[in-house]
Structure formats: C-alpha cells, structure tokens
C-alpha cells in the first residue's frame, strides 16, 4: 500500500500542514488500546514525581502514567511544573 502512495508536494500544501500530520501520526503510532485518562494520572502524579526525585524510574512501576504524560500535553505541563516546584523546595 505504502509503495502506491507518494508524499507528493502540492502547491497549496504548507510545511505547517505536513508538521501537523506528522505529529498526528506519531500520536496514533504511540496509542495503546488501554490508556488511563487525566483523572487517574493526576491521582498518581505525586507518587510518580516522588519516585523520580528519589532517583527511581517511575516508568517501570507506573508505566501507564508515563505513557499518559507522553500523550497528554496538559498533564505533562502540570507534571513539569510540579517537578520544578519540588526541586525549588526540596533539600
């Protein structure tokens, strides 16, 4: 199938459109049949952050949280801000 399809340029196509489509395909590729949604990820986020700050790999014990953070921009932003706040106050 792929060999029949070419990524042929068209005059009206923009680089932005291509970048968006690539982003979308990445997301589709990374999609799991079962994923946790934002509420469950939020419930576990503090535990996940503490594991990371202790030098453990939280992705091993909480792989679905790790996957959710890769897929959800809102939750990833919250996690990054949480880590930042913790690093500023721990020690």
């Amino acid at each position, binding site marked *: *199938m792929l060999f029949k399809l*070419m990524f*042929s340029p068209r005059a009206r196509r923009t680089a932005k*459109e291509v970048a968006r*489509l690539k982003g979308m395909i990445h997301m589709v*590729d990374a999609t799991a049949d079962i994923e946790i949604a*934002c509420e469950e990820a939020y419930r576990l986020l503090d535990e996940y952050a503490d594991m990371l700050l202790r030098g453990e790999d939280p992705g091993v014990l909480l792989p679905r949280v790790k996957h959710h953070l890769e897929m959800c921009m809102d939750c990833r932003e919250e996690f990054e801000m949480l880590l*930042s706040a913790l690093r500023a106050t721990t020690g």
Partner: protein
Amino acid sequence: MEKRSNHEWLNALKSPGPERERALAELRTLLVRGLSYALRGWRRTAGRDFEALAEDFCQEALLRILDNLDSFEGRSRFTTWAHKIAVRVALTELRRKRWQDVSLDKLVAEDGAESMMSSDEAGPETEAERTDLLAWMKRIMMEELTEKQRRAIAAIAFGGMPLEEVARRMDTNRNALYKVIHDGRVRLKRRLAREGMNPQDILESMG
C-alpha cells in the same frame, strides 16, 4: 522550617488551635516558594510578579487542600501532594486567562486546522488522492473520526489549545474529552493496520 512526617502534617492540619495555624503558615510558605519558582518556567507568565501570582494561587490551593485532607492516600510525601494541588489551581487559572478570548470555532477555522480534516476530501476518491499520502490521511481522518473528535483534535493538536479549555467549550470535562480523543486515535490506528500501513513507514516517507 521543621520537617514533618505525613502523619504529623495531617494531625497538625486537622487539629484546631495554634498548632494548625503554625502548620498552615509553614505550608503556605513552602507552596508559595515552589510555585513562584515554577511559574518562572511557564512561558506565558513573562514579566509578571511571580510571587504575587503564587500568593493568589496558594490561597485557593490551601482551601482545597484543607477540604481534601481525607483524600490524601499517603502514597507520596504530603508536601508533594500539596504542591500538586497548588500547581493544578495555578495552571487552571493561567490557562483560563490565556484562552478566555479565543472561541473554539474561531481557532479551528482561523488556524486552518479545519482544512486538515475536511473540505475537499469529501466525495469520491480521486486519482490524486490515491497517490498522495497527505490527502489519503485526511480522508481516513474524515471517515474514522466523529465530528467531536475532529474538532477536539484540531483545536488541541493543531491549534495548541489546552485540553482543559477545549473541554470547557464543549461542555464536557478534561477526563471525558481525553477518552473521546483516545477512542479516535485507536480507530485511526486500527484503520492504518487494516490498510496495511505502518505509521513508522509513513513518517519515513514524509522525510
């Protein structure tokens, strides 16, 4: 600032009197310090008074923490759990303010995101589409996704609007909208598999 165990934090915050006031003051100081630092990294707060902003958010966060003490499961440090709540309060408000004047319809239309999933791909498949990967992908998105899924994906993935803000405009919540989008991604993934298309191969062919 004294180091308290989770148990000591909970006991202090639950018992009325000076011990509670002292614990609350300590927690406030900690949350303001953490949040004012974290806000500096948030790209849309440039030029703002971080500490004043953090003070406002922490006021609300402390109320929420006190209301939800019984839901603390003890799976993390108590202070990590409290920071998590403060961050949620701050980001919810920052996102709401940042996007308050942007309508979903306008975003999807003006940003051109709509064109990714609609318009000229309706109707019979054309010869050009059979040899054009982008047009073909747009077609399967039209065929596999509901209108709600297309709008949400367009606004979030292409328009950059936070899930939370899209959910607010669609009269749903972030959790439910995530599930709607996940269902859409699963449908697209299965369709690609049925068509014998490997996403990695598609990406490679796009360069």
